Each structure stands twice: as structure tokens, then as C-alpha cells.
């Protein structure tokens, strides 16, 4: 148990305590001064009076599931290729996929707009090919744009846990399967895929949980219709300075995630799945 104490203690002091501080804001009247010491249920009232807020929460959850699905779908083949076909270079090739993320996210998004904007690379190409007559910002400023961009951002991160779970599959198992006459796709479906399931699951958590609260991407490429629940929370803290409202919106999200992870964990135990394939 002594193994757990350093991480548990760190999370206790620097995560749990701040969380409690934040939770206490949900029943305050205002952010600073006297109002921050006055009890009030105003934010609960605002939440119930604005069905739009919870609609955005639902939209965000759908978006997060879509993002993790596509990110895993795109990442799996790459992780598979790296582990089984890339030889000793696999670690470097994996890193190569991560490196773009060392450039400021904001700048990468601005660059995406160069590709997809009215006057961008894509339109220029399509115009010259004669496929379209007028430059339109294809794929930008919509919910689809948010999805595409999020998938772009998360693919390399989804590849990491899948990569490390495929790495540990012992080659002789696959050789044994093939010696026993299994076709490649059979050994993939019956050996490789189940054995890599913990990695897929980790990738799923990895991608889906942070994207529920995502706000930067919707701000930059979501336009008017692509606004997400995370934007609401961010607005309350960074622009509106309405911490009670922001705290309440965050707590709603945190509780949902907590319950989802616990339920999920009950049915599919991340620690046991795959160990015995």
C-alpha cells in the first residue's frame, strides 16, 4: 500500500482539496468579496431555467464518444504497424507522430484554417480542378469541424496506450496460432485484438474524458453552432467571473464522468480484461 501513498497524497492535496474549494463555490452568491461569503442557490436556478445548458452537455458527450471512436479507429492500424512491422525504429516512428503536438495548439489550428478556409489550400485546389465555382470555408465553423479537428489532435495520443499494449503481446503466441493453422485475420481477431483490449480501453478513457470538457477547439473552429459545454464553463470562469455558476457546471460534468467511469469499470474491468485473453 505504500506504493499508492505518494500518488494518493499528491492527488489528495493538489486535486481533492482544490476540488472541495470549488464545490463550495456552487452555493455562493458571487465570486469575490461579500458575495463570495453569502449563501445562495442562484446558480442552481440559472441552470434549471436554461435548458440550452444541458442540451450542450448532451451534445458534448456525443461529440466525445464520436471523437474517441474515430481516433481509436485511425490510431489502431498505426500502432499495429509500428509494433509488428516497423522493427527497431518503432519507438522513433511513434515519437515522430507525437512531435507535431509540441507546436502550439493554437498555431496548428490557425494553420488548419489556412488549409480549409475560403482562400485556403483545399479550395484553391478544388477551384483549379473546376470542381467548385466559389470559395467556401469547407468543413469550418461547424460541429463537424470540431470533430475533425479533435480527431486530428487525439490520434497520436490514442496510439500511445494501444502501442504499449500491443508491444507486450508475445510473438510466440501469434506464431503458435499460425502454426495451428489460424489464418492471419483469425489470429488477429482471436489473439491480437483481445490481448490489446486494455490498450483500446485506456485510449478510450484517454480521449473521451478530456474531450467532454473541451473548449478551445469549439472556440476556434466551431463557429456559432459548434459551441460546447466546455465553452460555457470556460466563459463563467474566464470572462463572466461567475465562479459559482462555473463551479456548478463543472461539478455536474465531474459527477457524470465519475459515475460513468465507475459503471464502466464494473462491467469491463480495465485491470483484468486481456490478462488471460
Amino acid at each position, binding site marked *: 500500500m505504500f506504493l499508492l501513498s505518494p500518488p494518493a497524497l499528491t492527488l489528495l492535496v493538489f486535486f481533492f482539496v482544490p476540488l472541495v474549494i470549488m464545490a463550495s463555490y456552487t452555493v455562493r452568491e458571487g465570486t469575490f468579496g461579500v458575495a463570495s461569503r453569502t449563501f445562495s442557490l442562484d446558480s442552481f436556478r440559472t441552470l434549471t431555467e436554461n435548458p440550452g445548458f444541458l442540451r450542450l452537455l448532451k451534445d458534448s458527450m456525443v461529440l466525445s464518444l464520436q471523437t474517441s471512436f474515430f481516433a481509436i479507429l485511425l490510431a489502431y492500424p498505426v500502432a499495429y504497424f509500428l509494433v509488428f512491422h516497423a522493427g527497431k525504429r518503432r519507438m*522513433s516512428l511513434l515519437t515522430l507522430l*507525437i512531435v507535431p503536438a509540441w507546436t502550439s495548439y493554437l498555431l496548428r489550428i490557425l494553420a488548419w484554417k489556412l488549409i480549409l478556409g475560403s482562400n485556403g489550400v483545399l479550395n484553391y485546389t478544388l477551384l483549379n480542378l473546376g470542381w467548385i465555382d466559389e470559395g467556401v470555408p469547407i468543413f469550418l465553423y461547424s460541429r463537424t469541424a470540431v470533430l475533425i479537428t479533435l480527431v486530428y489532435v487525439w490520434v497520436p495520443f490514442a496510439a500511445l496506450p494501444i502501442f504499449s499494449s500491443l508491444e507486450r503481446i508475445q510473438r510466440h503466441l501469434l506464431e503458435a496460432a499460425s502454426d495451428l493453422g489460424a489464418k492471419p485475420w483469425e489470429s488477429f481477431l482471436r489473439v491480437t485484438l483481445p490481448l490489446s483490449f486494455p490498450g483500446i480501453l485506456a485510449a478510450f478513457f484517454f480521449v473521451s474524458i478530456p474531450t467532454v470538457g473541451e473548449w478551445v477547439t469549439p472556440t476556434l473552429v466551431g463557429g456559432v453552432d459548434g459551441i460546447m459545454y466546455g465553452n460555457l464553463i470556460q466563459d463563467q470562469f474566464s470572462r463572466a467571473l461567475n465562479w459559482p455558476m462555473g463551479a456548478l457546471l463543472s461539478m455536474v460534468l465531474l459527477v457524470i464522468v465519475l459515475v460513468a467511469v465507475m459503471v464502466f469499470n464494473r462491467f469491463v474491468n480495465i485491470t483484468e480484461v486481456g490478462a488471460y485473453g
Partner: protein
Amino acid sequence: MAEARVAARWAGAGYYALLALFLYMPIFLLIVFSFNDSVILAFPLKGFTLEWYHELLQAEELLASIKNSLLVGFLASAVSLALGTLAAIAIMRFRFRGRDTFLSFASLPLVIPYVVLGVALLILFSALGIDLYLWTVAIGHVVINVPYVMLIVAARLAGFQANLEEAAMDLGATYWVTLTKVTLPLSAPALVAAFLSSFTTSFDEFTLAFFLAGTQNTLPVYLYSQLRFPSRLPLAVSLAAVVMVVSILILLLSEWLRRIGAGASKTKGIK
């Protein structure tokens, strides 16, 4: 069979190349625009200039912020790696009450909006009288990185059975020896992946760094606030180009070193 394997290999390589292209396309454009003689990031290109790189060399605040970001990145990643690995070993190798609760709770930093954590930590630090400095940023980054590390390492530990470790202990190894000689080496790929992931998150993290940084600014804080002035954008773009090229060079160098190392110690192969 061999033919199918070769085909799969080529298909995989092709797919890898496509994905890499997809990921690098924006970077490539940024590099092109870092030589563009215009303060606005839009087509058409205006002309070639080295002015932005020239200005970059003189932007002392900017260079200082890069140093700060590297420091925070390495510090936060090292600590998160240690803590996250311990947590992963604990949840994968021991049965204890509240294990599910701990797992769910430890996943929460993944979802907490950074601005909430940032503000809350700022309140905590000022209540405790702790002055803001770079290491307070690192603490914030450790909190958000531990769950990532834990998930990556746990996914790896799920793979080799605990009986490997038990065998080592049956043979008389102490727990620490087992940990350092069996568990950790077997987890090496996951540890590298986890470190990469932490460093990447930390290096480009804005919100926590903003609230917790004191007067030592990290690179994202400096860059984001620069965007208020359109005329400062090219500087940020040329910096991004430099960061990218340097990272790739480092990567190539380490690959080259690995090959040399592999050549020298061929007989020592572990796997």
C-alpha cells in the same frame, strides 16, 4: 504467408505515411509562412523574408519562456512518471478496498476543466502562503498528467502476468529488486510513451501555467498573450518552425545513436 506479410507491411507503411502527412501538413504550412513577408497568416504569400527569424533572436522574453517551459516540462513529466507508475502498479498488482473508487477518482483530473483546477490551486497556494514560481506550474501539470501515466502503464502491466513477478520473488528476490529488475524493465515502452505524453501536455499547456506561473512565464503563456498584437504573430510562427525542426533533429539524432548503440551491443539483446 511471407507475401501476405510483405503486403501488410507495405500497406501499414503507406498508412503510416498518410497519417504522418495529415499530422504534419499544418506544421509544413507554418514553416512556409515563417518566411512570408506579411504579418497576416493568409494566402496568397507575399514574398520571402528572414526578418522574423532575425527578430526572434532578439526577443529575450521569448527565449527565457522557452527555457522555463522545458524546465517545467521535464520536471513535471519526471514526477508524474514516478507517481503514475506507482499508482498503476498498486491498482494492477494489489487488491484493496476502495480500488475502484481510487481509479475513478484518479481519472477525474482528465476531465476537470483546467481553468477550474488553475483557479482552485491558486486559491490553495495563496491560502498556504506559497509563492508562485515555476514549480507551482509543475505541480499543476503533475496533477493532470498522473492519470495519463497511470492509464498507459496499467495497460502495459495488464499484459504480463503477475506470476512473472511472483516467480522472481519465489527465487528470493526482494520486492524492490523485483520492481527494478522485472517490473520496470518490462514496462519500459510504456514508461517512454507516458513520459512523451506528459511532456507534450506540459509543454503546450496554457491555462494552469497562466494562473500558477508568477512572473516566470512559460512559452504558451507568452505566445497566447502575444496574439493580442497582430504584428507579433510572425514571431510566434517562426518560433514554432524552429521548435519543430529542432525536435525532429533531436529525434533523428537519438535514432542514429540507438543504431550505433545497437551495433555495439548486439550480443546483449534482451528480447
